[in-house]
């Protein structure tokens, strides 16, 4: 499993892929950083990064699928699936190895972005609790998106289609929050409650306020796990019906 993980991480960095996506991420981050700094109202003396993360959400919907689109779609396209299907590794091991690899790349991107908070700390003051929890919440939210991206990649053999499907699923995930607040859904309290439970955005807001709750932490991890299990099922199912 470790070999698989290592190969995946290497494949991101032997091509310009990870570098380009990281650069894009940092560009978005820096632009929102600059605009937030310049539009700071004088009544707030401490800088909070939650807004930046919040803005990044929407850009991120376009970046995470770029990282995940190739995970399984490419393997199908280049017929390398048979390699690990005939090796002494199980499908869950492969799925988790790939998931951890993308998570690692994502983590590296997050670490790179620490540059901005460090500058802010150096030249001014930031709300540290909000910063740390913001980063944590953002990372957890990213893990769920990565799981979805990998699931979409396992459904098709076209990386581009996988990216588009990933974007659709992540957009849906983000808008669940707004849907659950519409008048129609609110008229059905149970549906609204269930939908709201799946709202990642609401949970993220708590994190960005510097609130760390175990239930939210468990929610993000278990949600990712469920999606990954779904991926395993998809791959196993295809093994049975593959022509």
């Amino acid at each position, binding site marked *: 499993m470790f070999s*698989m993980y290592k*190969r995946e991480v290497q494949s991101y960095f032997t091509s310009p892929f990870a570098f380009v996506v990281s650069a894009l991420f940092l560009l978005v981050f820096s632009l929102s950083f600059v605009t937030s700094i310049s539009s700071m109202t004088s009544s707030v003396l401490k800088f909070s990064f939650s807004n930046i993360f919040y803005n990044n959400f929407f850009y991120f919907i376009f970046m995470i699928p770029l990282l995940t689109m190739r995970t399984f779609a490419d393997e199908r396209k*280049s*017929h390398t699936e*048979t390699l690990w299907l005939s*090796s*002494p590794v*199980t499908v869950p091991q492969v799925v988790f190895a790939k998931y951890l690899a993308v998570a690692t790349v994502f983590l590296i991107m997050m670490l790179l972005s620490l540059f901005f908070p460090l500058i802010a700390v150096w030249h001014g003051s930031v709300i540290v609790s909000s910063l740390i929890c913001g980063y944590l919440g953002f990372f957890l939210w990213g893990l769920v998106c990565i799981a979805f991206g990998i699931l979409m990649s396992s459904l098709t053999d076209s990386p581009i289609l996988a990216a588009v499907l990933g974007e659709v699923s992540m957009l849906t995930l983000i808008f669940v929050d707004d849907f659950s607040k519409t008048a129609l859904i609110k008229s059905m309290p149970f549906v609204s409650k269930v939908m709201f439970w799946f709202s990642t955005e609401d949970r993220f807001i708590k994190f960005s306020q510097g609130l760390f709750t175990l239930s939210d932490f468990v929610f993000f991890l278990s949600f990712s796990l469920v999606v990954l299990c779904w991926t395993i099922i998809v791959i196993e199912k295809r*093994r049975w019906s593959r*022509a």
Partner: protein
Amino acid sequence: MVEIKNLTKFYGSHAAVQDISFTVGDHEVLGFLGPNGAGKSTTMNMITGCLPSTSGTVLVDGHDITKEPLEVKKLIGYLPELPPVYPEMRVYDYLMFVAGLKLVPRDKRKKQVETAMERLKITDVQKRVIGNLSKGYRQRVGFAQALLGSPKFLILDEPTVGLDPRQVVEVRNLIKELAKDHTIIFSTHILAEVQAVCERVVIINKGQIRAADTIANLENSVSGKIQLCMKIEGDMTKVTGIINQVEGVNEIEEVEFDSMGVNKFIVNVASDDIRKPLISALIANDCVVLEITTRKSSLEEVFVSLTTPGNSRTE
């Protein structure tokens, strides 16, 4: 030993492989023959555990693939039809990765990879990116991958496709060499290859086994006949009479005029051994035998007759 037991694979209602059973003994090279679309790759995918079977199973050294897939996979090296190589990786890195995937202990990986590269003669391209290699080299990298983890069994799906004639010979020699310490099942539709490398063949068509036997037996027995082709000088009716009297002659299938006073007789016989009494009988009656040859059906004829719709023969 690999035992394939009643292996069946359905894609929806279409049966790709139906009730296939055969056994491959240790250190044997088994040729798996069949026209395109006969179910060769499907069977091989099932033996290696890439594809689950609809029913039936495969036992590799006593391990059932449906119950202990990981144990079976440790024993098998597989080269699929399209070599499973990552185009963006370098040859050496790729082989090291596969060695890790096949659970080769860390300290033995380097050695195994180097040995495999030497065997396939790809040491000089080890630093190159696989995507830039020619098809022949890529095929050899795929082959090297199958040797990692020192598997006891090698499953090779059309290993010589895409290679130039010199490389084909090299790969055949390699298979012969590997047969010393591996059991090999390899599929192909090139008959010369089978004759060069295997002792035993399984012929499959439309998902069913048509024949499973040694090449010699198959050649002898496609329709159970051995023919003698003789050019004899002498009166046709007289010669016919003499031939028919010899014990072991089944029938005279055809008599052709060859040249003045000479006729060509095609005789169906029970075995090669009757050549001697036959010639003695003819000479005793003053008939001159100018030429005698034995005609056996070649593997090619066996293959064509077994894979043509309407014909069938199962062991």
